[in-house]
């Protein structure tokens, strides 16, 4: 599903350039649930942004579902993001003045799905994350866990090939963290490919594979026995 070869990325900071990713080789098969771990500054977020086509790579190659991702125009990148990827952010990133249902329907709107169908689908995904009764609520009327579940519903709505979660539990307490991870595991059980960036060991062990990043290189890449989040909920 995802294939990265010899990926380099550096940022210019004034006169110095900061070499963040120093040759990453990495492959994700369909249906995997991968945790990307590392301390802050290890390059894990940068890697996720490049995977999410929010940032461009300097060197190397990136193939997503057989499509080479290189030198995309903004229009093309937007199209690919919409079609291939779903984002889950640490700070939820819901649009404040839109209701939960409208937030979920947003990616479908960009796909030019008719209004009626869009609303039906949004309700369907909200039901899936257990928030159907909150459909008409604005984000600031929801708790942190609920917001993240809306965000997950939104990421799922466009039926992307890969879900990218950047510290999805970073702003949540451990109980709601486990609820969110439970949801992510269930989505993965249905066969969706998911990448989770985290620095929490327990969260990482709820995935099926852990990739350790340190100073811009992969130091460890191992399959783990998945800990079900269900038991903590």
């Amino acid at each position: 599903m995802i294939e990265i070869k010899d990926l380099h990325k550096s940022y210019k900071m004034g006169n110095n350039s900061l070499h963040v990713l120093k040759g990453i080789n990495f492959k994700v098969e369909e249906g995997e649930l991968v945790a990307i771990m590392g301390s802050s500054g290890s390059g894990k977020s940068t890697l996720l942004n490049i995977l999410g086509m929010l940032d461009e790579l300097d060197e190397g190659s990136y193939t997503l579902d057989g499509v080479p991702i290189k030198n995309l125009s903004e229009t093309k990148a937007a199209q690919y993001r919409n079609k291939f990827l779903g984002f889950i952010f640490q700070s939820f990133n819901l649009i404040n003045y839109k209701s939960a249902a409208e937030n979920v329907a947003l990616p479908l709107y960009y796909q030019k799905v008719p209004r009626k169908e869009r609303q039906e689908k949004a309700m369907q995904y909200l039901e899936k994350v257990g928030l159907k009764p909150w459909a008409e609520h604005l984000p600031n009327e929801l708790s942190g866990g609920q917001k993240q579940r809306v965000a997950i519903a939104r990421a799922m709505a466009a039926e992307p090939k890969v879900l990218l979660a950047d510290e999805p539990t970073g702003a949540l307490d451990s109980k709601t963290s486990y609820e969110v991870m439970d949801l992510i595991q269930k989505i993965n059980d249905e066969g969706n490919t998911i990448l989770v960036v985290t620095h929490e060991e327990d969260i990482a062990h709820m995935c099926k594979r852990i990739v350790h990043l340190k100073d811009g290189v992969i130091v460890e890449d191992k399959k783990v026995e998945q800990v079900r989040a269900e038991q903590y909920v």
Partner: protein
Amino acid sequence: MFDRDRWREILEVLTKNTWRTIFTAFGVCWGIFILIVLLAAGKGLENGIKKDFGDIATNTMFMWTRATTRAHEGLPQGRRFEFKVDDVQAIRDNVPNLRFISPRNQLGGFGGNNNVVHGIRTGAYNVYGDYPEIINQDPMAVTSGRFLNYNDINEKRKVAIIGQGVKNDLYDKDEDPLGTYIKIQGVNFMVIGTYKKNNSGGGEEGQKEIFVPFTSFSQAFNRGENVGWMAITAHNGSSISVLKDKIVSVMKERHKVHPEDTRAVGYFDLYEQYNRVESLFGALKGVAYIVGIMVLLSGIIGVSNIMLIVVKERTKEIGIRRALGEQPWSIKKQILMESIFLTLISGMVGIIFGSLVIFGINSLLDSVGPVDMFMSPSVSVGVVTGALTILMVSGLLAGFIPAQSAIRARPIEALRTE
């Protein structure tokens, strides 16, 4: 075009900070208001001045003789000469595109002695010897009886048409002047009609004139073949200002005046005067447009500024939307539509207020009666559509820079802003 979600979003964004939107809108509203009111005021002035011209045929010149200033063909300098009746035909033969050529003779004039008697009353009036065509060049409304006709001319009838002012002076209030006689410098003329002039330019004087047939005038007052002056009107398609040189040179040739003698034939070109007034109003309109658009411009800059702030505030949201896959063009369109919508709505409010003010002035003018040099200010539908077009374009311009800045930042940078 009509996308419900897009419009909902536009309204949501603009109503989120209501007062800010209202103050921004006020700038544009004020600009277009000034533009509309200035244009209407200019139009009102124009209507007022043009009313003073009345219905006078404006494509007209008046021509008279003066003493020569140069010797020519053995004739001395300082010689006096007069136009003759034949000159009319000569002009008609030599100069094309003339509609009316009226030779005129005149008695009395400014500060003249009493020259007209009816019963025991007397008065001093301008008495004109005229052809029937004069009514087309110096329009008047015949209020009773009739105007001159060619039978009067051919039979040299001693008949007269008197102005309303003359009637008021010489007759009792309820006396019918038709069929009565007035004595003009000792010669009796029968009154066959009364008239009233519309243009206020002549003022009271215009109502105190007496018209008699040209031929009877010449005979009664010993003018022979002489013509006092001429009123010449060109056809609508051609300008008298162009033809006048030709007319004057025909007259110079016939009367043995040196071709370079500029003083011998005097004339007044009404059309040139009228054009001068016309171009004055053209300039006035130009000034109104410039001032209005300048004021509008500051409003537009206000809109542009606010849109920039809105974009800045929404940087993160725009980042999220781009991460979700919204196309840059769609974001740009959104910002542009917000800007155009804001300008257009506030502009329409300005137009409505402007129209209300114009309406108010009009009803005020109606209630206090006519005012000098100002009449029914108005703006045409064309001006309003023009204003709306200006608004559309300026909304587009106002939104352009903000829209550009909305998609300039990369989505990752937009997402990072808090």
